[in-house]
C-alpha cells in the first residue's frame, strides 16, 4: 500500500509546491518550503519503492543536477537583470507602486522568478543528495571482513 501512496502522492506534491510559491507573497509559503515539499515526496517514493525502483518510476529525476544549476542561473538573472536597465540589482519590474498583472492571486513580476529559481535549486540539490545517500557505493551493507580496497576506488 505504501507503494501506491508513494506513486499517487508525487504529482499532487508538485501542485502543493506550486501553490506554496504562488501564494508565498500573500500568505505563508516561499520557494524553500515548496522545494522541500517536492523533495519529501521524492523521498517517500525512494523509501517505498527502493532506490532503483524510485528512479525507474520517476525517470526525470536524472535531470536534477541541471535543475539545480538552472535554478541558480534563473535566480541570478532575476536578480541582476536590472543592471542592464541602469538600476541597482534586485529592483523588480514592474516597480514599486506600479500596476502588476495578476493571474488570480499570482502576481507576475520578477521576484516570483527568483522564487522559482530558488525552488528549482532546492529541489535539484536535495534530490541529488537523496540519490547519493540512498544509493551509495555498491559495498553498502556488506560485512567488512571481505577484503576490499576502499581507498582506491569509489
Amino acid at each position, binding site marked *: 500500500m505504501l507503494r501506491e501512496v508513494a506513486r499517487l502522492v508525487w504529482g499532487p506534491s508538485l501542485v502543493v509546491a506550486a501553490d506554496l510559491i504562488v501564494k508565498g507573497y500573500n500568505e505563508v509559503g516561499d520557494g524553500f518550503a515548496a522545494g522541500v515539499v517536492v523533495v519529501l515526496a521524492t523521498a517517500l517514493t525512494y523509501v517505498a519503492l527502493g532506490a532503483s525502483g524510485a528512479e525507474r518510476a520517476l525517470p526525470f529525476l536524472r535531470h536534477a543536477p541541471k535543475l539545480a544549476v538552472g535554478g541558480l542561473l534563473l535566480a541570478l538573472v532575476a536578480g541582476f537583470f536590472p543592471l542592464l536597465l541602469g538600476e541597482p540589482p534586485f529592483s523588480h519590474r514592474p516597480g514599486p507602486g506600479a500596476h502588476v498583472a495578476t493571474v488570480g492571486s499570482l502576481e507576475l513580476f520578477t521576484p516570483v522568478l527568483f522564487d522559482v529559481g530558488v525552488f528549482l535549486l532546492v529541489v535539484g540539490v536535495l534530490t541529488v543528495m537523496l540519490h547519493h545517500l540512498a544509493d551509495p557505493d555498491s559495498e*553498502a551493507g556488506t560485512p567488512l571482513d571481505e577484503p576490499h580496497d576502499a581507498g582506491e576506488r569509489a
Partner: protein
Amino acid sequence: MDEHRLLGEPADQSRAEDQGRSEDQGRSALPVDRPGWAACAIVAVGFALCLWAYRRGGGSVSWPWAPTLDLRLSFSLDGLGALYALLATGIGVLVFAYGTQYLSLHLAHENRPARERWRFWPWMALFAGAMVGVATAQDLVLLFVFFDLTAVCSYFLIGFDRSETLTRRAALMALLVTVVSAVALLIAAVLLYVRYGTFEIPQLIDRAQSGTTTTVAGALLAVAALAKSAQIPLHFWLPKAMAAPTPVSAYLHSAAMVAAGVLVLGRVHPLLARSDAVLTGLQVVGLASIVVGGLLALGQDVLKQVLAYSTISQYGYVVVLYGIGGTTAAGAAAFYVLAHGVAKSALFMTAGAVTMATGEDRLSRLGGLAPRRPLLAISAGLAAANLAGLPLTVGFFKDELFFEAMHGAGPWMTGLAVVAAGLTLGYIGRFWILLFLGRCRTEPRPTPALLTAPVVVLGVISVVLGLVPGPFSRLAEDAGTVTAAAPVTVLPGYHATASAPNLMALGAWTLGALVLLLPGALGRVSTLVARAGDRLGPLRLYTRTLRGLFGISGALHDREVRNLRTSVAAVLVPAGVLTGWAFVVTPTVGALSVGTVRGIDWLVLPLLGLVTVATVVAAVSRARLGMVLALSVVGFALSGIYALVGAPDIALVSVLVETTITLVFLAALAGLPRDAPPTGRFLPGPEAAPHRQGRQVLAGGIAGLAAFTGVWGFLSAPTRAESIATEFIRLTPGAHGRDVVTVIITDFRGLDTLAEITVLLIAGVGVATLLRKGKLW
C-alpha cells in the same frame, strides 16, 4: 607535447607518404568545427563593432553597480581601449579560423573525442570578451575583475591537454603567478580609493599627486602588469605555458593576455609618471627582460620556446618605453604592441603549421622547408622581418619609433637600443633560417590551407602597412594620447637622411648580421645564462615556495586534525570559561530579566519543556536510532513553538526540514557499512552505547552554562534603536506583497538569499564528491 608521439615512427619517406595518405582520408572525414566557427564569428562581430565604434569617435557607457560603494560598471572605447580591443578581436578572428583546423587535427592525432572542442572554444570566446573588457574598463576594480577573468580562462586553455602532467603544471604556474600578482592591483586600487576617494581611473589621474601613496600604488600596479606581461623576474611561467596548443599560444601569449599587462601600464601611466622611482624601475625591468629574453631566445631549440623568450624580450621594449615616459615614447609603445602582435601570432601559427606537418617541434630536426612550403616560408619571412625591423615592413616603423624615443633618453639608452634590436634580428633570423633553409631533415606532409592562410594574411598586413602605415599610426596616436595625457603625434616614414633612428637601425642590422654569422659564441653564452637562471632564478624560488607551503600545510594538518575531540574541547571549554568569567565580572544587577509570560506563552512553555526533555534523551540514548528519533521530536516541538510565536513561515519550513533531516539520518544509519569488530586494542564494548565519561559531561555542562549566561544576558537587553523591521513592514505593500518574510527573502535581502543558495549548491557538489567522486548523478 602530442607531437612527440608521432616521433615514435621513423621519419623515412615511405612511412611519411602512408601517413600523408591516411591524413588526407582522415582530413576529409574531420567534422566541421562548429563551435570553433561560431567563436570565430562572434569575435569577427566584435571586431566589426569595435571598428565601427572607433570610427565614430569612440564612446563610453557607465552603469551604477553598487552606488553606495562607489562601484560603477564603466567602459570607454577611447584610443587605448580601441587599440587593444581591435588587436585582440582582429588577431582573434585569424587565430580562431586557424584553430578550427588545428584543433580538429590535434584531437584526431591524440584519439580524443571531438566533443572536447566544447571544452576549448567557449573559453577562447570568453577570453576574447574579457580582453575587450580589460581594454575598455575605466574602473580599477572592474579592471581587476576582467584581469583575473583572463587568467582563469588561460588556466583552462593552457591546461587543455589535461592528461599530461607538464601541461597541468604549466597551467597552474601561469594561474598562480598572474592571479597572485593581480592581488597587487587590487591593493593598489584600495590604497588609491582610501586616499583619493574614487575607483575611476580618469578621476584618479586628475586627483593624484606625487607622494608615498601614489608611489606605492604605482609600484603595485606595475608589479601586477609586469607579471602578466611575463617580464623579469616573473617571466618564468611563459616558456612553460608553451605546453598549450598552438592556437592558445598564438592568441594569448602573443597578442592578448601578455598584452593585458602593458595595457594596464598604458592606462594608468599618468599615475606612474608622478613617481620617478616607478619609472626607473620600469626601465630596469624592461631592459633586463630585453637582454635576458633575447639571449635565451638565441639558444633555444624548441620552436615555441624561441618565440616565448622572444615575447618576453619584445614586451621588454614596450615596458622600457613606458619607463621613459613622454609623448614620443607613449606613441612608440602603442605602435610597438600593434606591430608585434601581428608578427608574433603569425610566427606562432607558422610554428604550429610546421609541427602539424612534420611532427617535429625542434629546430635541430627541421630545416629546408622553403622549397616545399614556399607560401608559408615567404609569409613567415615577412613576419620575421616585421619583428626584426627590416625595411618595407611595418616593423621598420616600430623600430624607428623605438629608436627615436630611446635616443631621446640619453647615450646609454641609445647603445642599449642598438644592442637590443641586434639581438632581435639575430634570434629571429636564426629561427627563420634554420626552419626554412638548409637541409631538409623531416619531410612535411600536406596540411589544410587554413593552417597557412592566416599567416599569409598577417604577412601581407605587415608589408602593406610597411608601405602605408596610416591605420596603425592613427591608432597609436589615439592610444598614446590616453597614455601620455597629452596630444601625441606618430609620424613613421622613410627618411633618406642620416637621422639618429636610421643610424641606429643600420647599427642594429650590422650587429644582427654578426650574430647570425657567428652562432657559436652567443649560443654558448645563452646556454650559460639559461643554466644560471635554472639554478638561481625565480623559477627555483617559485618551486621552493610552493613546496614550503605544502610542507606547512602538511604539518598543520598533522597537528590539528589528528585528534578531533581535543580540538572540539579546546574550543568549547575555554570559550565557556571566558564567558563565565565575563558574567562574573560584569555587574548584573538589573541586567537580567526573567521576562513576562503573556497569553500564548503558556502554550510555549510546555513545548519548551518538551524540547528540553527530548534533548536530554537524545544525548543519553544508548541506541543511535533513539538519538535520531529524539532529535526529530526536538525539531517538531520547535516547529510548534515557532508557529505559536507568530512565525508561520518558519514553522512550515521547520516541519518540512525536520522530516527531511530525520529521513536522511535514517538513510545514513541504514546505509552505513557495519563497523569492524573491535580489535582489542581499545576497551571492548558495545559499539552503540555512548561513552559516558565525567570529563565529557563536565565539558558539556560548562558549554551549556556559558550558553545560558550568554543568551540570557543577550536576550535581556534588547536594543533601543529603531529596528529595520518597521521599515520592511512599511515597504512590503509597495513591493506587491503581504507576507513580509517572503518579501524580505526574495526582494529586500535577495543578495543574501543568492549567496545562501550557492552554499546549498556547493554542499550538493560536496556530497556528490564524497560519495561518487564528483559525478553529480
